[in-house]
């Protein structure tokens, strides 16, 4: 067992992944677009917001469901619902946090309703994966990874993620895959940073147990 201090040290010692380029879009700019969309049903302004956040929202939902079709449906429904509810957006939080929260709630509800009936339909890996030094090292070091293809590793990883509860999986996806900070994850999931850290620690432990053969 780890003490609380050890847990926090272990968690905080992990470098956060690089933030994505799109995350640097200014909040003020978002707010201008939101106000324009709110004022006159300006679809052009809303279209810009969709283009700005579609990739990140899709990635979050896709990593949660491991299914492209479900992710496609959920992302579209998220943007439609956000547009309809845009008048209720007061600007207390950033648009980015607000729309993320809609997507997260929608996805968690969807997964709870479907339970384990969601089938995996994994996207293809891009060409850059062959040049990722970490991944190349990971599959070429030891058995059983030596004989393992990346697509098999992808299936194992997604299978392990699906064994986590929806909330634990969401924390891992937002922090470890998408590179959001603990604070951002807390705002999106409507919980405090301590809860985010403890969920992350527990989820990583579970993943390590499920993927122990590939982490030696």
């Amino acid at each position, binding site marked *: 067992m*780890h003490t609380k201090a*050890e847990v926090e040290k*272990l968690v905080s*010692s*992990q470098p956060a*992944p690089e933030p994505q380029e799109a995350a640097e879009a200014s909040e003020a700019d978002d707010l201008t677009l939101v106000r324009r969309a709110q004022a006159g049903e300006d*679809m052009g302004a*809303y*279209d810009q917001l*969709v*283009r700005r956040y*579609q*990739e990140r929202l*899709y990635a979050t939902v*896709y*990593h949660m469901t491991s299914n*492209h079709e479900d*992710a*496609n449906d959920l*992302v*579209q*429904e998220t*943007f*439609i*619902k956000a*547009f*309809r*509810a845009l008048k*209720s*957006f007061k600007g207390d939080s950033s648009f980015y946090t*607000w729309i993320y929260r809609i997507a997260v*709630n929608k996805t968690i509800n969807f997964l709870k309703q479907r339970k384990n009936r969601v089938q995996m339909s*994994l*996207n*293809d*890996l*891009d060409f*850059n*994966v062959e040049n*990722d030094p*970490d*991944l190349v*090292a*990971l599959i070429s070091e030891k058995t059983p990874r030596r004989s393992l293809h*990346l697509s098999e*590793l*992808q299936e194992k*990883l997604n299978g392990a993620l699906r064994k986590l509860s929806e909330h634990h999986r969401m924390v*891992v*996806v937002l922090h*470890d*895959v998408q590179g959001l900070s603990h604070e951002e994850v807390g705002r999106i999931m*409507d919980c405090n940073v301590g809860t985010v850290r403890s969920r992350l620690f527990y989820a*990583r432990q579970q*993943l*390590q147990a499920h*993927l122990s053969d*590939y*982490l030696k």
Partner: protein
Amino acid sequence: MNQDSENVDALLKLMALKRHEQPPPGYFARLPDKITSRIERGEGQLNFWERFLAGYTFRPAFAYSFALVAFGALGFSVINSVSTAPADSARELAGEGWRVATPREALASQVNLSDMPHVANWMGNTNAGAGGPALPSLFGPPDHSRAVPVSFQAGPP
């Protein structure tokens, strides 16, 4: 501790694989148009209740306060009605000169005991001791003289 840290490092490297999963080519170029056309078709239009609930979805504090007030009012009304209703109704009845009837009086008010119907017992008797004309027994031979002709065909019999 080092082992744990190494495992987490390896896990994070493995998680990097997820970032290489990409949707079909051109997907993000088409997605905004699909969303726009669905919005313009009027999909996802919120009805009154959805608009009402949407306010609570995005502002949980309102939802909690609304629930608190609603349950408080419900609880107050239930407690109030339970504690006052029996006393009030008894007082009202007493004021109008009502009193509670005995079981015999209550039965007599509902049923005329001297005009009870005749009922066949298991031996075919029809309460003969009570006087009045004897009714046919349910268990005796059929009395065809009392049969009423019935026709299921249209027109006069």
